[in-house]
């Protein structure tokens, strides 16, 4: 019922029907709504201040949604808790370690080179000191003839006459 008698009397003057009508509102309000409203309004004031500031400087930006366009890829690994995934061990190379490794590799390459070059070296002193006449006498005549047959063919020029050679020289001069 109305606390203000004047208002009640005014309605009764219009019609006695209003005596039967309760003046309470039937709508419900969420619990603790009025306790939390001042803080909600404070938050809105802050948001509004940010919006108004941008509206003065660059209003276009206020029309663009603020959601980030980036996406985090979805994979089974990402879905697992971090402690369930075994992390691969990472080796850290420091400069002193690298220098020692390089020196060792260099020494091994040098030793290998010296060893192999020693094995392949020709003993020229044996050739210089040899008695060539005696060596040739040990070789049979047939072997020598066969050698000369092969090597003479390599040395002899193709079948060109002296006349042809002379003409060729004269024409190129």
């Amino acid at each position, binding site marked *: 019922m109305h606390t203000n008698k004047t208002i009640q009397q005014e*309605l009764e003057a219009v*019609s006695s*029907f*209003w005596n039967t009508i309760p003046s309470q509102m039937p*709508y419900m309000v969420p619990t603790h709504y*009025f306790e939390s*409203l*001042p803080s909600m*309004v404070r938050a809105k004031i802050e948001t*509004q201040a940010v919006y108004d500031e941008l509206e003065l400087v660059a209003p276009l930006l206020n029309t663009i949604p603020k959601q980030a366009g980036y996406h985090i890829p979805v994979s089974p690994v990402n879905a697992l808790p971090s402690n369930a995934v075994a992390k691969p061990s990472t080796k850290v190379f420091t400069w002193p370690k690298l220098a020692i490794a390089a020196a060792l590799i260099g020494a091994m390459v040098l030793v290998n080179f010296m060893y192999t070059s020693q094995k392949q070296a020709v003993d020229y002193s044996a050739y210089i000191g040899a008695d060539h006449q005696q060596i040739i006498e040990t070789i049979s005549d047939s072997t020598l003839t066969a050698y000369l047959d092969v090597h003479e063919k390599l040395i002899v020029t193709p079948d060109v006459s002296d006349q042809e050679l002379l003409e060729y020289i004269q024409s190129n001069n």
Partner: protein
Amino acid sequence: MDLHLDDTSLLAAFHNQTTKEKGYNGIVKKYQEKLYWHIRRMLVSHEDTNDVLQMVLVKVWNGLENFREDSKLYTWMYRIATNETLTFIEKEKKRAIVSLDQDSDTFRDKVKADAHFDENQLIWRLQLAIKSLPEKQQLVFNLRYYDEMPYHQMSELLDTSEGALKASYHHAAKKIEEFIKSY
């Protein structure tokens, strides 16, 4: 901030930079329920009311610096709330036209959609009857019937003469009575 402080003390606290927040919170706590019900009676839905009320209180924060104390703080806040509510209703009407939903009465439908709605109860029929009135007449009826606002204060709020408001209220009361009797 003490809720029982008078408006002058609350405004003085607001105008002091060190107590500005406290002064504003005091004003909000003092008037939030009255403003809430003023808006809710018009919009029916709590969600819509919450949105509009928050907008009203933000406007109060922005406007309090320039508030001239030649009108009552209460009346000034009611005026902001009334304007915001009527703007919201206009938007809802336009939205209904765009969605080709002209046949439905948005706010009467919202009354019926309330979880506790019971058309056999007089208290709910009264809400449906109020929703059958034009918005301005609803405002006048609500301010007088529920808020028990004096005509001179309502006149200041709605920029209408006291005589016109009184006629509008009586006319609204008769229409509501007819609606309920014929329901």
